[in-house]
Structure formats: C-alpha cells, structure tokens
C-alpha cells in the first residue's frame, strides 16, 4: 500500500490504548470477518535484522579486539591479606556504592539504597503513574509543585546532614530542571521547554538516578586516592 489512506484509527501494535484506541469490530453471524488493518511496514528478520545485528556485533568485536591488543588487563602483585593497598577499590561499577559507603553507614549505603533501587526498577512497569506518561506538572499543578519542593528540600537536607555534597550537586541540577519544567507549558515556544513539560515523574526519578550513578561512579573511580581522599586523576 502506498500513499496515505484517510482513516480515523490505526490498529497498530502500539501499547498505549488511550492514545491510539483499537477499533473494535463486531462480527455478525455467518459473516466472514472483513478487517481492514493498516499494518506498519515490516521486513523479514532474516536477513534484514540479522545482518544488521551481525554487523553491530562485529563492530563491537572490532572495538574490543583493538582494545585487547592495545591495553593489557591489569594484574598486580599476588593477593596478600596482610598488605592492604591504599585505596582498596571495588570493581568500578560498585564504586558508586563504595562512595556512598564513605558517607552513610553500611546498612544504608550497602543494603538499603541498592535494595531500594532494585525494588524500584522492578516495580516501575507496574506503577500506574508511568503508564500514563503524562507531563508531571500538567495536572494538579499547584499540589504537585508543592510536593516537589517539599521532597526536594527534604532530600537536600538529608544529603547535607551527611555531608554528601557529591550527591547533592546532581540532585540540585535535576531539581533545577524539574523546577524549570514546572514553569513550562506544552504550548511553550521553545521546543526544549515543551519537552521538559511533557516529562513524567518516572523520567525525572530515573534521570536523577542515572545522574547520581554516573557522578558517584566517576568520583569513586577517578577522584579518590589513598585514604579515600580527593585526588586529581591527571596528577598521579
């Protein structure tokens, strides 16, 4: 089928039923179904997708092989329980955790926070609010802005209490964008602000999490030296 066909609804694979409701067809007895579906363009998985996938994996392999040829994996002295290197660092993906352990008691940073994060990740799809994918401040604006300010202030206070400036900075930046989003409307002239206004709560939480994760991991990896004190990576 080529060329646009005027129609009201599209029976598609889209999952957002509110946005594109599926047409319901009543089929009477002894009448064969006559459903006109404008299906989306599809191609054969083999070879179209597989070829691309293979090329993607090959490109990845090229990158990794070059890296393996250029840089040797680290290997230090034999494990010696009597000599602790300073600093003793966990694998990089745990350095965000280790950085938090520097501020919070182990139960909080090592168990509570990661546990909550994993729980949050698991429940995200089942969380009603996310399904709507509506801009956070589009509805019930005053109340939500109030809640936002209270929550942000509480979080900042909490971080300040533990002197976690490393986590405070990303939190404040994200909060700043959220404040901007609260002031933006979908009719805004700026595309950026239109975009901000349309972001749902889940987006903001995830962005905050991503930002914190990146900053904490980067700090733990590059900016921490002996005694978990600040160092500059370029001044080894």
């Amino acid at each position, binding site marked *: 089928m080529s060329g646009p066909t005027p129609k009201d609804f599209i029976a598609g694979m889209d999952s957002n039923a509110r946005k594109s409701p599926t047409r319901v067809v009543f089929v009477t007895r002894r009448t064969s179904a006559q459903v006109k579906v404008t299906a989306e363009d599809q191609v054969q998985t083999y070879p179209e*997708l597989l070829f691309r996938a293979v090329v993607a994996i090959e490109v990845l392999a090229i990158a990794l092989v070059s890296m393996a040829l250029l*840089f040797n*994996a680290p290997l230090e002295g*034999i494990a*010696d329980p009597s000599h602790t290197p300073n600093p003793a660092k966990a*694998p990089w993906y745990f350095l965000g955790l280790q950085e938090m352990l520097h501020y919070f008691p182990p*139960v909080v940073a090592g168990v509570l926070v990661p546990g909550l994060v994993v729980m949050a990740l*698991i429940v995200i799809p089942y969380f009603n609010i996310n399904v709507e994918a509506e801009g956070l401040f589009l509805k019930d604006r005053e109340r939500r802005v109030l809640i936002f300010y209270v929550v942000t202030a509480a979080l900042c206070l909490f971080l300040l209490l533990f002197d976690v400036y490393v986590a405070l900075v990303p939190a404040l930046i994200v909060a700043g964008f959220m404040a901007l989003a609260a002031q933006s409307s979908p009719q805004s002239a700026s595309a950026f602000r239109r975009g901000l206004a349309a972001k749902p709560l889940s987006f903001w939480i995830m962005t905050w999490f991503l930002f914190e994760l990146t900053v904490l991991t980067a700090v733990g990896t590059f900016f921490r030296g002996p005694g978990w004190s600040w160092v500059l990576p370029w001044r080894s």
Partner: protein
Amino acid sequence: MAKTITNYFDELRGTRVWRSVFRSGSGSSTLHRALAIQQNVFLHLFSTKVRTRMLSFSATWYLGTLTLGTFLILVSTGIPLMFYYHPSVPQAYADTKDLQFVVSSGLFLRNLHRWSAHAMVFLVFAHMFKVFYRGAYRPPREFNWVIGVVLLLITLLLSYTGYLLPWDQLAFWAITVGSNIASAVPVMGNKVHFLMLGGNVVNANALLRFYVLHCMILPLVAILFVAIHFWRIRKDGGLYAHQSEPRTVAARSVPAKGVPVP
C-alpha cells in the same frame, strides 16, 4: 569463480542433509526467509518479521544486540582461559601470569575477556536506560523489564565473581571490600557473607566458590534468562515502537529486497 561458489551454496542448501539439519531449504522467498528463522533453534526466539523502523540505529542503538555480542565474546574467550586456570591458592595467580607470558595469545584472550566484561556491564546499564527512556517497559512488556533487571544483577554477579579469579591484590581487596558490604545486611548479613565466601575471609574456599559461580552456575542462569528475555520480545509483540516516532519515513528507508541471500 564467485558464481560457482554461490551455486555451490545454493546446492548445499538444497541437499537432503542440509534440509534434514536445518529444515529450511534454499531460496530467497519470504517463506524461506521466515522458515530460516522459525526452524532454527536459536533464531526462532525472534519473530520472523520486524517493524521496518526498528531497524534504524536510533531506535535501539542496538544495545541489546551489543550486550549479547559481549556475552558471546565472553563465553568464547572464557572457555579457553579455563584450560590454563586452576582455582587454587596460590596457583591461580601463577596461572594468570602464565597466561600473560607463556601461553600463546593467552594475554590477548585475557585482555579481551576482561575488557568485554567491563563493556558488558556498561552496555547492560546503557540498554536499561535506553529501554526506560523509550518507555519500552510498559505493558505488556513489564515482565520482560523485570527479567532485564534480573539479567542486570546476573551480569554484575558474573563480573564480580570473575574479578577474584586472578588472585592478585586488585582482585583480593576488591572482593574483600565488596563482600563486606554484603555482611552489612541486618540479621542475615553475616550468614550471607559466610555462605558466599565459604568462610569468614577471602581465601581458597572463596576462590573455588567464585570460580564455580563464574564458570558454571551464573552463565547457565544467564543463558536461561537471556533465552526467556528474547522469547518474551517476540511474545510481547516484537521490539517496542513508540507511536510518536515517524514511521513512513522509516518505512521507506529500507529497500524491500535489500539483502541477497547467499
């Protein structure tokens, strides 16, 4: 010459033996192409068709594919490495050195394994965030998202257990620091720590446990979950395509008869 090879391929795909093994014969018709997917034990996890606009790079960044790629590289480099590795103290360290210095290309394989492991952790994270920002976790895909979270944890565990195996200072202290986090869990933390290390400190027991987890249990669990993950993509209606994205343009972008089938 080139032609002969092509013919030979076609002939090969037409033979009874080929057909008995792969069930799909030669030919480039849509049916044959569909059969090529359906009748292959690995490929049948995919649907036979995919929405055209999902082929575009920006749709997925191919992050899931790339993650699978790192996993394949890790398996194919990890198995050879096992041939030269004894999970015992202090032999493990000497073996790692031997891999670096005397085993032919051992250093290369170890490097590739190590960097791929890091890449996999990174790609899994990236994949997760990409999926989230595209909203691809929404019903009916919510359970596949949960499987994805489980796979993230498995990936972290795989990487973490592998970290100890060289038995060097880096490994030992990273695992010591990491395992002490586990013992912070109230009530059962110490039990978990004890069970995980097979003792109170990181020693030969811990090495053996981590080895078994790293080489045996976790990869099998990972493969199982990856299979479910892929299968669920098909069952949940293929790769998620957001309605707000342009489709007509994407639809035109791929020539229908793009790829000649060898």
